[in-house]
């Protein structure tokens, strides 16, 4: 979707400000938001592409006005509602005070403390084992499709209808543009595609520089 998350090429956000000796988290609530998001992800009810899509659905004005872990919190609340795990009413009631009855969830497989380390180690969500033939080879000239789906896509706005060259073949991966929309894995090759800066940004860009974007077979057509 053409949401507030798709930032490549926008102007006006000001300089990049690097904080010296930055802590991993700035507030206790960020720690908790991070941890409950990861732990809930291990319930296996949604994939990483669906979790990204949930965050992308934050209204653009709100997305740009809030911080990173607020995006995560928005996404987590949406996923928990969509999957009938925690309702909006339950959150509203809990905000008024502790306690109160909660609707139990049947069949949930909670991440236990002794599973954390192995679960993080073997986390392998998107590489596909299927043997799918590549549509392109390294060196092939391609052009990206001009798509503007309402659903999730990993083809950024700034790189649609642009010509590039396949630089790397990463092998077979789950396709986020279907998996993120609950439409299946559709495994296919993912490539690192090289775009000259001038192809993306016009003659004001330098002729020497390039942007590499990871794109899937279904994002590309022969050029």
């Amino acid at each position, binding site marked *: 979707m053409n949401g507030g998350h798709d930032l490549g090429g926008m102007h006006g956000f000001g300089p990049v400000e690097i904080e*010296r000796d930055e802590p991993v988290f700035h507030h206790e609530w960020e720690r908790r*938001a991070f941890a409950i998001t990861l732990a809930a992800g291990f319930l296996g009810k949604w994939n990483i592409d669906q979790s990204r899509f949930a965050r992308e659905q934050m209204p653009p004005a709100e997305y740009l006005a809030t911080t990173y872990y607020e995006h995560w919190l928005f996404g987590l609340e949406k996923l928990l509602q969509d999957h009938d795990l925690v309702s909006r009413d339950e959150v509203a009631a809990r905000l008024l005070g502790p306690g109160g009855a909660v609707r139990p969830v049947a069949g*949930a497989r909670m991440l236990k403390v002794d599973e954390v380390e192995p679960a993080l180690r073997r986390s392998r969500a998107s590489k596909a084992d299927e043997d799918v033939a590549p549509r392109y080879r390294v060196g092939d000239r391609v052009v990206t499709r001009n798509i503007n789906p309402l659903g999730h896509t990993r083809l950024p706005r700034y790189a649609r209808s642009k010509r590039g060259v396949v630089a790397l073949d990463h092998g077979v991966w789950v396709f986020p543009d279907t998996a993120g929309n609950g439409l299946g894995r559709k495994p296919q090759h993912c490539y690192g595609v090289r775009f000259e800066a001038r192809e993306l940004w016009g003659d004001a860009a330098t002729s020497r520089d390039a942007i590499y974007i990871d794109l899937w077979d279904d994002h590309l057509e022969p050029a």
Partner: protein
Amino acid sequence: MSHDHEHGHHHHHDDDDDVQEHREHGAPLSEVELRVRALESLLVDKGLVEPAALDALIDTYETKVGPRNGAKIVARAWVDPAFKQRLLQDGTSAVAEHGFVGRQSEKLVVVENTPAVHNMVVCTLCSCYPWAVLGLPPVWYKSAPYRSRAVIDPRGVLGELGVRVPAETEVRVWDSTAEIRYMVLPERPAGTERMTEAQLAELVTRDAMIGVARVPASAGASR
């Protein structure tokens, strides 16, 4: 350190001590703090997350996994040409030799900075970052100024951060749109020929492995 850029504005986040102080003075928690707390307590009551597992997830990324992992990889590559070759050919397997595997690093591609090519890494659509070797991303990497400008004005961003790239050097920006994660192998600074691998690792900064800083010739850099 003289190499540190001068503009480095400090963000004035209130830290946990401030939050604690507010609590002691009876000030109410912010809306986002209340929401996270409500959600966490609901998830615990419903048996969807285990509190000890949440603490273990936080501890992993706050104290165990971080850019020191990547710095060890870089230092090894500088002193061991065979390892460097393996690292550039198959980053995932080469860093697995050091035990660095797992979430947000299903496939790692390491790109080498040379006098001819300067690489830098961004995720314009969200915050993709090689957790296994660099830990969780800093705020600036996840924020709109970097995500918007890195692809359209990489030399401008680099210049502001104190990295002047000669006109004859090609800038390559890697937009991490898939599950492939990118790490930059920075140039080894001149004058470090007598240093040990451990001393070299001390020089390597997080930002040099993202491609927005050079490695200083002496230790003490904060980023």
